[in-house]
């Protein structure tokens, strides 16, 4: 495993005088140290941890249910919002029971935003997981075996890549949603649609994202594998008779994992946006599951009269995106300081 070092950029600051034997340890530690020094990344990470806690304990934090509609309270706002959005003054009805106001059917906006974080965060963690697993397996097979296998596998990726992914997801969602509801009970597809229903429509979002997100990862993995597979340590593994699978996953994969993880972290905001887009156009979560995208969609219909209904979910989404962008950036700089250009 000492080969790990040969491929990674030498740590530029501070590690120069260390004895060689400690270097393998110091790759991840060094990255972690650099990450902790990056204030923006630390803030981003902290916000993410906070968001995770908030969404896990959503039922404790949210004051009300996310689905109970109190029709007499529709569009009511608390007093303090009038100073933020003065245009509402002439017609707004006041109710202090809702910290951020109530939506167009009288649901508590604050509680819905808190619960809505569950959808975005699940997508943020499960999206990369699917894409990493599928993409890495596909990409390493393609890159490792090379030749005709590589050619065919990469042409498939090329064609899928040309297919606009958001369009593809939209089509898939339309397909999933309408076929599976009419399927008789007892079949696997029925079980899937039931599970999707229980998850508030998230299962098919995961599948949709998973089916479209792995292509970039596959290409990246292939490139990385190509750059590593001719190295001496792989040859050495061959000579001692290691199997292809062992070489791929024991020798090559650990050496290329760093860039892959960084890349996947940088892709997370993209998954979050995709979910929000889908929910915005009504193909994402199934109502009444709150999702920031769906809430922005509902809110932007009344943005001229009740801007709070669109602005607060939008801010929540923006904060979440900020956090993941900061963390992703920090991770990238930590793993490859050259990219920051601090030489």
């Amino acid at each position, binding site marked *: 495993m000492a080969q790990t070092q040969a491929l990674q950029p030498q740590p530029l600051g501070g590690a120069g005088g260390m004895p060689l034997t400690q270097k393998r340890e110091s790759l991840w530690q060094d990255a972690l140290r650099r990450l902790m020094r990056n204030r923006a990344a630390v803030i981003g990470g902290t916000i993410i941890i906070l968001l995770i806690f908030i969404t896990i304990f959503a039922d404790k934090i949210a004051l009300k249910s996310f689905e109970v509609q109190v029709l007499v309270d529709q569009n009511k706002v608390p007093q303090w919002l009038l100073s933020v959005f003065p245009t509402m003054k002439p017609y707004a009805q006041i109710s202090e029971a809702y910290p951020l106001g109530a939506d167009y059917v009288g649901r508590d906006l604050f509680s819905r935003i808190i619960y809505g974080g569950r959808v975005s965060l699940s997508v943020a963690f499960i999206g990369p997981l699917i894409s990493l697993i599928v993409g890495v397996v596909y990409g390493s097979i393609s890159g490792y075996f090379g030749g005709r296998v590589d050619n065919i596998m990469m042409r498939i990726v090329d064609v899928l890549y040309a297919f*606009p992914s958001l369009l593809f997801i939209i089509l898939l969602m339309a397909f999933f949603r309408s076929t599976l509801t009419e399927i008789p009970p007892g079949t696997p597809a029925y079980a899937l649609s039931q599970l999707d229903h229980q998850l508030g429509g998230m299962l098919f979002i995961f599948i949709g994202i998973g089916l479209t997100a792995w292509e970039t990862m596959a290409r990246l993995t292939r490139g990385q594998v190509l750059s590593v597979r001719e190295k001496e340590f792989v040859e050495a593994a061959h000579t001692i008779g290691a199997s292809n699978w062992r070489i791929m996953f024991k020798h090559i994969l650990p050496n290329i994992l760093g860039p892959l993880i960084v890349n996947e972290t940088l892709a997370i905001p993209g998954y979050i946006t995709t979910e929000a*887009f889908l929910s915005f156009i009504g*193909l994402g979560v199934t109502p009444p599951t709150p999702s920031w995208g769906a809430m922005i969609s509902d809110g*932007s219909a009344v943005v*001229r009269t009740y*801007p709070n209904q669109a*602005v607060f979910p939008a801010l929540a989404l923006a904060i979440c995106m900020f956090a993941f*962008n900061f963390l992703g950036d920090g991770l990238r700089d930590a793993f490859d300081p050259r990219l920051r250009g601090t030489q």
Partner: protein
Amino acid sequence: MGRYVIRRLLYMVVVVVVVSFITFGLMHAVPGGPFTREKKLPEETIKILNERYHLNDPLWKQYVDYLYDTMVPHITTIAPTNSLLDDFLISKKVGPVWFRWMNFGPSMHSRSRTVNDIFRANLPISAQLGTMALTVALVIGMPLGIVAALKQNTIYDYTGMAMAIFGVSVPVIVLGPILVWIFGVALKWLPPTGWGAKPPYILGFLPTHLGWDYFRFAIMPAVALGLGSSAIIARLTRASLLQTVREDYIRTARAKGLHERTVITKHALKNSLIPVVTILGPLFAALVTGTFVTELIFGIPGMGKYFVVSITNRDYPVIMGTILLYAVFLVVANLVVDLTYAYLDPRIRYD
């Protein structure tokens, strides 16, 4: 180079056919058809409609017919009729024969329009929006990236890159409603919805006048859509330029006494553009799909509504038409990007 372009063009056709195949398959796998309504139509009516739109034919025949109508140029002596089934996007009389190409069929939902009608009336608006968003992205992104790189590790650099992170973190669905409220409702500077251009268009998509009347509608959506991309461009430009100015040939250029400005503009910038050009393909894709949502937020009568609505309505020809259109856009954009490489970096040779 010529052979490369031809190969790529053939490849484009393959991609478009595959895309059409997948779309066609998925579309017909969804139960219910264009005439399934909440309030059921009479049996007899559905039968007649299916007959008229050839929905009773076997699927493979429908698909082959569709490909034939859309992709194969028709050369006939028969003059075109007014029928909705007979609307070709390109229809020219050359001598005694008609050259006709790209019949995307009638919309099955709004039964007085063809897909080509939608293309002619609404696509130009989406195209204008997309073009302007791309312009915003480039005009904001590149200077920001260049300044950040040239003044590396100064306050300009940090502010620029902080702005860039801000930009990527606010997708159009975040920025859109906020902009509408601030500039459209609270300050009343700009109209919150609508679009300032009507047909006829120059070259099929350019508005005939470009005054304040036009731009006051376009500024907000274009900024909302383009800002995220501008941030990506800024970061990439910065990273790429930083790498380039460390190259040996830049040192050579400096050593031979060139003015710093000349070194940057003549030597560094052009070479640092290559990664920026690479990203334009995917970026274009993001902008094109972003136009749907932007149009919904800002009430712009572009293609976005038709795309989303056609899927829920099972309006087969519109689904196929819009998806194929976007697919063609994207592959053409990628081709243009690849050809631009060759221009920017003479070391890249395609043959």
